[in-house]
């Protein structure tokens, strides 16, 4: 199995995209997951539904609306243009933003479940031991909900690696910028380069299998935080 330079670029880009998205989603998703886990607001239902939308929508729908929003006439597009950044579609950062929306439930739900299963008690105990809110989050919640965070990171990463429809809508197929592995495979098939498509596809299967194996092995070892998303 050998990869061409374009294939290697696609693999590297995919890893870069998935890492960036996972990192950003952990930062953005944690407060949302925290809020969803702890609130009794009447907005909980609607927000949870919005977060879960990518689970059921065709990726093309998300891609389509993001394309319009980030395009030259869209609200986001006008904003980025006014900052002198140009428009986001067909750029790496456009892909990052689209992937964040698309992979959001896979990161938020495991964290939310982990925080919900902690309950109030550890937080109350921490407060009676003089730990302030941030102290409590980093020294009590994070370690206790660690399995949930690890699950979230693995799923967020794997799911971003595996996306195709959103990439095609937002990113197109620009080598080194938006041409990720899944799109590259499509490209090879279109060009009847089945050998190279095989190599990349086999790599994806291997990767996904190892990720899931690691995930289930990890969940068996640590506390089981049920995956509600899959």
């Amino acid at each position, binding site marked *: 199995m050998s990869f061409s330079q374009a294939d290697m670029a696609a693999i590297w880009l995919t890893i870069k995209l998935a890492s960036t998205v996972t990192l950003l989603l952990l930062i953005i998703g944690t407060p949302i997951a925290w809020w969803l886990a702890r609130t009794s607001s009447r907005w909980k239902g609607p927000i949870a539904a919005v977060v879960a939308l990518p689970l059921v929508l065709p990726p093309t729908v998300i891609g389509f609306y993001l394309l319009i929003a980030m395009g030259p006439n869209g609200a986001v597009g006008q904003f980025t243009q006014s900052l002198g950044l140009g428009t986001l579609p067909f750029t790496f950062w456009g892909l990052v933003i689209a992937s964040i929306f698309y992979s959001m439930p896979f990161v938020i739900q495991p964290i939310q479940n982990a925080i919900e299963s902690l309950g109030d008690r550890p937080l109350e105990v921490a407060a*009676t031991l003089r730990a302030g809110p941030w102290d409590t989050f980093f020294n009590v919640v994070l370690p206790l909900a660690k399995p949930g965070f690890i699950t979230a990171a693995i799923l967020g990463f794997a799911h971003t690696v595996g996306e195709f429809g959103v990439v095609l809508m937002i990113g197109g197929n620009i080598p080194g910028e938006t041409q990720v592995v899944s799109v590259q495979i499509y490209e090879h098939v279109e060009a009847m380069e089945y050998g190279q498509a095989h190599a990349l596809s086999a790599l994806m299967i291997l990767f996904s299998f190892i990720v899931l194996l690691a995930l289930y092995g990890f969940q068996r070892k640590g506390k089981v935080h049920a995956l509600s998303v899959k």
Partner: protein
Amino acid sequence: MIKACFKVAYRSSVKSDFSLDVKIDIPSKGVTAIFGHSGSGKTTLLRCIAGLEDSVHGHLEVSGQVWQNDNYCLKTYKRPIGYVFQEASLFDHLSAHENLLFAMKRAEHTVSQDNFDRIISVLGIKSQLTRYPNELSGGERQRVAIARALLVQPKILLMDEPLASLDTARKREILPYLERLHENFDIPILYVSHSLDEVARLADHVVVLEAGKVKAQGELTQVFSTLEYSSYFEQGTGVIIKAAVLEKDRQWHLMKVGFTGGELWLSDNDEKISEEVRVRILAKDVSLALSNHEDSSIANRLAGKVEDIIQEENSPIALVRLKVGDEFIIARLTGKSLANLGLKEGMRCWAQIKSVAIVH
């Protein structure tokens, strides 16, 4: 002195409505028990004092410092409290020692090695320190939790039924440690319990709650010997008397204790001569006679004067309170016996006590 006044109303579709409306004064020394049946609001009251209940109206002043009033509420993590929860609440990801360190790092003042050693030895957890919570027994976990609450160097220790989740054997294992707490550490303890035994054994003061309201509060022996409250204790109605061990009868494994009202014989539990003990005399174990029956099998007979009598309507039971020396004894009789004896307030009679239990 801790002055607390709270008004809380919970409306919930799941549970029935509950309201707490209390005003209490708690002395800043010794153990104050908050006693009540389940649902009386005692845990809620303790949580209000800790600041763990949201949106509660109230005033709270602890040794002159305002913790809460109409437009101010000190956050829980800024209150100098120690809190022991009903079930073990150790952090699972930390060993027993790390759990203690968690508290020490956040304590207002550094904990001296002496103080640390003393707390560890009073609670007997030296050999458990390296273990994780899931490797400890329920009793050990609770002892570590108590040590952790002490290491945060609180100005007041709040304990929410710390024994309720333990079986009888574990309770017996922990009770001596709790007794040693207030002998060894000079901080006020608020102790929530629904167990009369624990209250009788540990408390100096008691606040009795019923349906979210204060039914009685005051010194332990005084609250227990007040007739109008005592029916609340049901089968546990009875008095607690502080007495001193006078002598021992090795042959029959008995010891004699004395108080202002006389002397009592009870089984010898290895107490030392002249040690102060608490004895509990239940009203159902006391019968009354107009003369001293020396030919009776009942060894403990005390002379007293009828202080007051309560007989509820439509109930066959009457409670009679006798003044014996400076203390009181309550007897539970039927209304019929009461009428037969013709007992009236101020009359002299003899209390025959079938059993006396030592609680301390």
